[in-house]
């Protein structure tokens, strides 16, 4: 968050007129993740990664919608080219029939009820009610899967809600409830800043929390915003690739380069295909923090004299718990610095796990 009277050039009119800028309605613009971006890409991306089976069986009857690509990829499911059905270990009682004793025979008709009387009567067609298979259809053509029986859905396998994924953290400093305090240096002014992490999900490279800033405007001694962070790693690249955030590759590099710990990475990280793997095991975790809305009342869009339209480039030191940040917004003073250190907690860690 920054003080727009002191450091921001635009007026409220220019804020609204600029296409890439935060009009009040774009303040809470959702963070658009690459995962969703993939959703809008062409279907062939999906199809090319769906493997097909090469088991010596007839080829997959493909539906154009899901399998437009004809390139067959071998499936690691089966190392064999054909299925040997004779020496399988059956995990329960043995199969009792003679393997070769079956004879081919016609399919059994499925309508065979009790109805013996005139067709004028209303048929109570049990077989039809029980069977949806009697309507054999071509899988590529439209079919109606009807459900004549409200069959039980709950089975002997785990109930659907039993899965628990416990978020673990790579650093004691990087966990829910962790608090940091320090300053934001904007020009000649220094503001006291407190940050409180609310949820950390390393698996999703996600972090969120509250950012409190003091003395930014006269009307509000303390302003609190809710922010969300992307951790740079396999999921998020050093390059922001968010038009609505106003950052270009050039500004990305210029900001990252101000962190000493980024310099060893600089050469590779500038490559567009660079993937920052094992990010959680390194001394420094790089992030982008974007303030989303005000706390407690998220509906308040405008604060006279303050704006959180930009975002922070963050370098988090996992060894010391210190945080360095640089605020970026196209039209505000460059390189406003955030410096925070961890507030000692003596291992007072709350336990929580989303149900």
């Amino acid at each position, binding site marked *: 968050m920054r003080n727009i009277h002191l450091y921001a050039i635009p007026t409220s009119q220019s804020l609204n007129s600029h296409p890439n800028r935060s009009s009040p309605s774009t303040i809470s613009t959702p963070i658009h993740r690459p995962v969703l971006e*993939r959703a809008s890409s062409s279907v062939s991306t999906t199809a090319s990664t*769906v493997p097909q089976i090469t*088991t010596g069986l*007839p080829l997959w009857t493909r*539906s154009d919608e899901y399998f437009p690509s004809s390139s067959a990829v071998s*499936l*690691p499911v089966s*190392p*064999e080219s054909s*299925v040997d*059905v004779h*020496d*399988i270990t059956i*995990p*329960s*009682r043995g*199969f*009792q*029939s003679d393997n*070769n*004793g079956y*004879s081919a*025979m016609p*399919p*059994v008709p499925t309508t065979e009820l*009790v*109805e013996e009387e005139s067709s004028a009567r209303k048929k109570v067609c*049990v077989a039809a009610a029980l069977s949806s*298979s009697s309507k*054999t259809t071509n899988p590529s053509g*439209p079919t*109606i*899967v*009807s*459900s004549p029986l409200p*069959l*039980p*859905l*709950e*089975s*002997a*396998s*785990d109930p*659907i809600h039993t899965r628990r*994924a416990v978020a*673990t953290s*790579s*650093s*004691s400093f990087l966990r829910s409830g962790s608090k940091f305090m320090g300053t934001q240096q904007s020009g000649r002014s220094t503001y006291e800043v407190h940050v409180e992490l*609310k949820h950390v999900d*390393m*698996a*999703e490279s996600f972090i969120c929390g509250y950012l409190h800033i003091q003395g930014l405007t006269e009307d509000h001694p303390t302003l609190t915003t*809710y922010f969300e962070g992307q951790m740079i790693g396999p999921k998020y690249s050093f390059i922001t690739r968010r038009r609505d955030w106003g950052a270009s590759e050039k500004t990305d590099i210029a900001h990252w380069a101000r962190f000493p710990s980024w310099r060893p990475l600089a050469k590779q990280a500038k490559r567009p295909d660079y993937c920052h793997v094992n990010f959680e095991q390194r001394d420094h975790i790089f992030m982008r923090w974007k303030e989303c809305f005000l706390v407690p009342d998220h509906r308040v869009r405008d604060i006279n004299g303050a704006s959180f339209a930009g975002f922070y480039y963050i370098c988090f030191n*996992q060894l010391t718990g210190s945080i360095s940040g640089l605020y970026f917004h196209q039209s505000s003073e460059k390189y406003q610095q955030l410096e925070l250190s961890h507030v000692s907690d003596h*291992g*007072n860690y709350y*336990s*929580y796990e*989303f149900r």
Partner: protein
Amino acid sequence: MIAEDDLLPYLRSDDRHGQLGALRSLKNSVIGHSDQKASYLDRGVLDDLLAIIGTPQDGVKDPISDECRIQAGVVLGSFAYSDPEISSRLFTPATLSTLVKVLTQYSPPALLIASLRTLTALLTLRLTPSLVQQFPDLAKSLSELISHYSTACFANYARQDVQVLTNLCTLVPLISPSHSSAQSVSSELTGPLFDLVYGSLKSSQTSGMVFDSKLKSTAILALAHVLTPTAAREIAAAGPKFTNPLLALLRAPDTATRLSAASLLTALYTSGKPEITSTSGVTRAPQITTLALTLVPTLMKLLDDTIAAPDHGRKCDPRILHTLAILCREGGDVTDRCVEAGLIKKIVSIIVQVAPNNHFAPGRIFESDGKLLSSSLLCLSALGLYNEDYRKAIIEAGALSVVVAVMNTANTPATREVKIAACHVLRTLSRSVRLLRTTMVESGVVCGIVDLLGDASAEEERPLLESVDNVGSEPEQMDDEPVHTTVTEVAAEEDEEEEDLEVRTAAMAAVCNLVLDFSPLRKPILDKGILPLVVSGARSRYTPLRLNSTWALKHMVFGDDMETKACVMSHLGFPLIIKLCDDKEIQVQEQALDFLRNLTARSETYIDMLFDNVGVDEVFRLVDCKLSLRPVPPIDESEQELLSTQPYYTKVIIAAAYIIVHIAAGYDRHRETVIAHEAVLRKIVQLMRHENYEVRLACVWTLINLTWVEEPNRAPDDVASAGQIHTVSPAGGQSSEQVQQEQSVSSFAELYFADIYRRRAMTLVRLGAREQLEYLKQDPVLDVREKTKTAIYQMDSLVGRSPLSAEDEQDIEAGLSRGVEDAGDAMQIDSELHA
């Protein structure tokens, strides 16, 4: 031919030929004629039919008698397959027991087929999870019948055998419609069903025989239904020999076969994943992921075909969505693919078709719609489990208003399941701090969710279902089975009660997330008076509800909000929480210990309250026994299941260790209690080699806190105690000596504490903590290494030397003997002070 009016006496006579003729006439007059059926039922024909079907078999083959039983069975079947008003009149304990008896003793195949169909119709009408409890032999009988007819079928492939088998397989999910009942029949039925499925897959491959596709799909569905995770893992271990023919079925011409194959493969796939994972660990075998990814297009195609035509969403088979839900709850690529294929919007379009404008009036939701709605919502819930963007997409698609509308709908059997599913959507969405702070605030979920929790308890005395009441008015039952009336009614009540408990359990799961400290809904929910409901849930005998309630309590004392902590403690006494710490279910123990961990975090007040109410020694006894908790190897369960509970035991150890960390982070006298309990400290030192890094970390934190040197001005409580020491000593008290006196107080306190700190450190060294720390310097986890450095620094500065030489060891030993005496003295002083 006999005149219709005269049928009943013939039915009741001993003349088998007359009886047979009467049955045939009866059959012809009732089939397709609801009015006739109603009239015959009014005249008590049900009893006659049941008596004939249940004719005792004396071992002598009697073709006429068999034919009579068959005909009676067929007539009963025609009653069962008619309007619900008529078929529900058949739903009596006597009918159920007669039909089950047909399965448990020798019966001709035609009678079997008729009876299986009747049972199917009745159980479809009303799912009865308690059936397998009422008839303990039922699963075994089904199992034997499936084995017997499978063998016959593979030998001859007679049409009748196929029919019997198909009907047997259809019945399997219906006799076990709940998770617990399905588990209870699993051991009996998995074997024969696997043999049947495997045989049918094999026969298609080896001989090119066209195995009846309906039998194949019902058998596969039945197997998927009874498959426990353990059994699924065993089958999955058999590898591609079983899964490849199943994969081939994903291309079968008929939709039922494709769906059944997909659901069995899903069961096999998901069994590979442990119930609890830590996000830094376990990765799935690529083979299983690939398998799962091949299922997505199949299921999405089935779904698309269904919803392509206008208003066909209602005809969608709920199992498609249910299977997708099970796949998607694993997260990762599978979920991404489904979302990319537009699953969220498709589901919402189905919901809109079933209930336009969120209109969920009870009369409108039929049983089948209910299944479809609940599986739709469950699928949405699964999609949003892990990914913030997907949760947002679910909100944007308008799901939250659906959830609120469902929660506010009147209770009917059909809506109950939908409500459970709606609670799961709410639970998923409330995993997002952002949504909790924004959309949820205005959604009106608070009233809905609290009502669901309150509702159920008020409904405990609800009357039985209508049809059971009807039955009760006709006191007709088979003479040899009088006991079943009450058993069935009690069982029906139990079924109802369990369903209500499931609603409360699901609602409580959502509450867990809604009461976290960053949720603006925490206060409104507490203000609604939820605490008594949560506490009563924590007392419930129903384990899932007890678990979720304890979980919710834990989240209520999460954070620094002392007001809420006080409010929770005013409703919840320590005895209950201590009792939950020793709960039979390990996950409940985990939550209860985490509750204590949260309660004592950053709060000396609550450490004291815990000590005062439970007793210091009792607290340490509790922690002591939890620190050494190990899963007891079960005698008859496989190693896999043992492994699957292991993570919960580790979580219990972590929780217990952090209670010690938090006590040690309190005042100095709190640290003194930890030092005084060497048994616990010994465990802590041992656990520094635990395989889980969080356990190791907690142990290191304990050492850091115990070697912490408090600055006097930062611990008012402790300075006060030092001051008291001085007042005990004979002091002058003249005002001219005031300054000097204060100085002496401060220097005395310094000496007093310096001695205590040093003795603490030496105790820890004696117990082997210093060596363990040396070992942890090489810990693979960065965080543990960093904290180890701090602990070593603090400990060494107190003990005075680093690293320890052999001579130092001797010094310490010598010092310790003194130290122990000193400690005794100090403790005495301390206890006097705090008396």
